[in-house]
């Protein structure tokens, strides 16, 4: 069973074989590099690993590298419902997406939509004290990213708050595939979904 967030390397022996050295040494060197870079997105890691493992005079044999990153544990962030906490949440989400190999425009969409949902929660938390908190969770399953942003307040519906939070919702709907806002007695949950295979 592959542990969550684990990195699996498949490579030709050109990557790890060096004259005058046992194969085990080369493999250990590659494994150490992967361990030190467990948070790097897989695409970047294939390039970085190949560069880092190159002998001084270059590789002697063809090098083929395939990296598989097993999806990480779901992300769970509890943040105080205050504006100054939003940036830290976004950065943590971005780092988790990197581990999961979600980068570029797809990652941007997730960070932007989650930022909007969390901003709504901060602005309209029923209890405006810093003690109030918002929970952000992120998970990857079956080729889709699902984000949940939960607060303990109630969002004003867009028609009661024109131009303001309505804009945030427009942005969320523009960049994500599914946006669902469920207002309950105890609070509001925003569910955001983006398909990764496009």
């Amino acid at each position, binding site marked *: 069973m592959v542990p969550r967030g684990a990195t699996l390397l498949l490579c030709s022996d050109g990557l790890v074989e060096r004259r005058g050295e046992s194969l085990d040494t080369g493999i250990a060197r590659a494994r150490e590099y992967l361990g030190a870079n467990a948070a790097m997105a897989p695409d970047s890691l294939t390039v970085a690993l190949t560069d880092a493992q190159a002998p001084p005079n270059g590789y002697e044999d063809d090098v083929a590298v395939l990296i598989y990153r097993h999806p990480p544990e779901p992300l769970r962030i509890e943040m105080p419902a205050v*504006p100054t906490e939003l940036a830290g949440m976004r950065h943590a989400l971005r780092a988790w997406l990197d581990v999961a190999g979600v980068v570029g425009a797809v990652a941007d969409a997730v960070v932007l939509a989650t*930022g*909007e949902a969390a*901003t709504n929660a901060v602005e309209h938390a029923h209890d405006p004290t810093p003690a109030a908190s918002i929970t952000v969770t992120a998970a990857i399953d079956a080729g889709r990213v699902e984000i949940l942003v939960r607060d303990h307040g109630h969002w004003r519906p867009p028609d009661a708050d024109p131009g*303001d939070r309505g*804009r*945030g919702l*427009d942005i969320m709907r*523009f960049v994500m595939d599914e946006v669902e806002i469920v207002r309950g007695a105890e609070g509001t949950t925003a569910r955001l979904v983006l398909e990764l295979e496009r």
Partner: protein
Amino acid sequence: MSATIETRPNGGGVLVVRGEIDLANAAELDAALAARPAAEDVTVDLSAAEYLDSAGIKVLFEHARRRRLRVVLADDTIIAAAIRASRLDGVAVVEVHARGS
């Protein structure tokens, strides 16, 4: 989190934004725009900014009502996605440059 908003030397009316603008600091963007002379056309250069969501975009919409606003941004960025989604191009000139140019 930090954002800096600079006015280009000799360049009346160009605000260069670096860093991230969100609900916590959108008021800084508002203040920088409000500080410009009333009749001046202003360019907000977001091509080096790293994040902007509806909190900052709301500020741009508000100032677009009071003066001619031009917004410059880099394509294929999170900024471009947010601006595109908000239809700011309906009230301001939005200029998109190729990323890295």
